[in-house]
C-alpha cells in the first residue's frame, strides 16, 4: 500500500514523537549538527526509529529536519548534504517493518527570503532540492515539510519536492494564538495556509510543535472550521519546557497527553503524533487510545 492509499483508507496514521529531544537524551550536545549523526551514530538513529515503530508508529520521520543546504552551511557541512540526507533516510528504512512508512523530514532554513532577508527564491528552493533528491533516491515514502512559518518558504520546499520526485508530501506550520486567530510568527493565518496547501495538493495539512496538546486542540478546531474536508495532521509537543533540578522537562506526561487525545480525535485528524518532548511512551498511549475509540 502506498502512503497515499493509506491516507485515503481513512484509518488514522500514527506518526512518531520527537527526534531532537530523543537525540539529546542519547548524548547529542547542543551545537552539534544532528544530521551528522546519520553517518557518525547510525545505530542510535536506527534505534530511535525502531523504538517508535515498536511503540506503534505507522510512519516515522527521518533525522533530516536541518538537512537543507542553508542549514548545513552553518556547520560547514554543505558539501555532505546529499550523503547526510541519504543516510538519514536509509537508517529509518533499514528498521521499517513491512507495511509501515518512512517520511523525509524537511524543516525551514532559519533564514528570511527577500525583501525581509537576503535569500532569493532560487537559493531557497535549491537549498531543499538536495534533500528531496537524496531521500527520493534512498527510498522514502513521502515528505513532511514541518514547522514552517513563512508561506513563501514552504512554497519553495514544495517546488523542490514536485520538481524532483513524484512522492506525496505533508505540509505543517507552527502557529500561536493572536487576537485574530492563530497565526505563524510570519503572520500566516490558518485560512491562508490551508488554501495554499489545497491548491498545492498536499496529502496532509496541519501543524506541529507549539505549546502542548490543549493548545493544539484549539488550533485543530480552527483548521476544521476553515475546511471540513482537509486531511489534518497534528503533532503537538509535550507542553512548555521548564527546568526541574537543572534538567529540562516538559510539562505533559504521556498520561496527560493520552487523556486529552479523545478531544483531539473528535476533530477527525488523519494523522497524529508528537513533537518536542514526546517519546515512544507518548506514542504507545496514543495508539492505545486510538484503538479503544
Amino acid at each position: 500500500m502506498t502512503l497515499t492509499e493509506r491516507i485515503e483508507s481513512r484509518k488514522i496514521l500514527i506518526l512518531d514523537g520527537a527526534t531532537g529531544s530523543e537525540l539529546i537524551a542519547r548524548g547529542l550536545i547542543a551545537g552539534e549538527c544532528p544530521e551528522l549523526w546519520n553517518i557518525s551514530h547510525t545505530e542510535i538513529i536506527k534505534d530511535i526509529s525502531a523504538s517508535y515503530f515498536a511503540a506503534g508508529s505507522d510512519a516515522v520521520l527521518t533525522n533530516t529536519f536541518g538537512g537543507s543546504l542553508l542549514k548545513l552551511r552553518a556547520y560547514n557541512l554543505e558539501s555532505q548534504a546529499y550523503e547526510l540526507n541519504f543516510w538519514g533516510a536509509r537508517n529509518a528504512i533499514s528498521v521499517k517493518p513491512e507495511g509501515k512508512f518512512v517520511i523525509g523530514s524537511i524543516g525551514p532554513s532559519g533564514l528570511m527570503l527577500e525583501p525581509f532577508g537576503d535569500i532569493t527564491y532560487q537559493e531557497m528552493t535549491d537549498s531543499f532540492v538536495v534533500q528531496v533528491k537524496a531521500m527520493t533516491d534512498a527510498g522514502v515514502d513521502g515528505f513532511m515539510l514541518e514547522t514552517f512559518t513563512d508561506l513563501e518558504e514552504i512554497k519553495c520546499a514544495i517546488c523542490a519536492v514536485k520538481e524532483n520526485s513524484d512522492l506525496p508530501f505533508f505540509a505543517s506550520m507552527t502557529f500561536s494564538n493572536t487576537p485574530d486567530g492563530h497565526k505563524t510568527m510570519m503572520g500566516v493565518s490558518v485560512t491562508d495556509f490551508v488554501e495554499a496547501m489545497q491548491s498545492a495538493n498536499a496529502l496532509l495539512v496541519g501543524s506541529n510543535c507549539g505549546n502542548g496538546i490543549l493548545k493544539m486542540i484549539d488550533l485543530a478546531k480552527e483548521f476544521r472550521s476553515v475546511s471540513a474536508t482537509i486531511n489534518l495532521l497534528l503533532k503537538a509537543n509535550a507542553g512548555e519546557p521548564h527546568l526541574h533540578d537543572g534538567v529540562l522537562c516538559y510539562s505533559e506526561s504521556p498520561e496527560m497527553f493520552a487523556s486529552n487525545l479523545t478531544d483531539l480525535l473528535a476533530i477527525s485528524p488523519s494523522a497524529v503524533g508528537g513533537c518536542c518532548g514526546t517519546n515512544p511512551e507518548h506514542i504507545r498511549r496514543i495508539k492505545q487510545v486510538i484503538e479503544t475509540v
Partner: protein
Amino acid sequence: MNELLEKLSLAVESGKINKLSPYPPAMRGLDGADELCQQALEAGIKPEVILNDALIPGMGRIGKKFSDGKAFVPEMLIAAKAMSAALKHIKPFFTSGEVKRKGVFVIGTVMGDLHDIGKNLVAMMIEGSGWEVIDLGVDVKPEKFLEAINQHPDCVIGLSALLTTTMVNMETIVKQIRAQYPDHKILVGGAPLSHDFCKKIGATFYSSDPQGAVEFLERSVA
C-alpha cells in the same frame, strides 16, 4: 508635530526604507526613512529630537502591534531596516557626543544555538531606541560575555535562544556571569522561554517580545 518628523515616524513604522524600496506597496515612489531623516537634519531639526520624536515612537508603535499579535516578524524586520537607514544619518552625532547614548547593550545567541532572527530584531529595536549595541553573534560562549562586561562595566547583557536544547546553556552563562558580577543586569528571550525559567536560572528580566526589552531598558536608565 513637525510634518517631516511625522512622515519619518510613519516611514519607520511602515518599513519604508528609502525611495527606491518597493515595500510597502502603498508607499511606492515616496521618500523613505533614509531621505526623510536627511531632510529633517537639513531642515535644522536637532538629531536628538529626530530620534525621540520620530524614530523611537515609530518603532514603538510597530513594536506594540507586534506585542499585541497585530504585526509579525516581517513587518518588524522591515521597520527595523527603515530605522537603521534613518539611524545612519544620526550616528555621526553619537560619535561626536552631540547626542548621548542611553547605554551599552551587549547581545548574543547562546552557545550551541545558531538562530539569529529574534536576536537581530531585538538588537535593531534597542539600537533604534538610542543604545549602543554590541552584537556578539551566534553560538556565543560565556567567556565572550564576560569579556564584554569587562570592557563595558555598565552594559546590559541580552541572551537569546530558540531551541529547548540550547536554552539550558543560558543557565550556564548566567551562572558564570553571576559568579563574577552578582548584580549585573541580564535580559533573556526566545521562543521556549518563560518568566519562570528566567527566575530559575537567575536572570534579571524576561520579555516575550522586543518591545518589552526596550521598555525594560528605558526603566533601567530612568
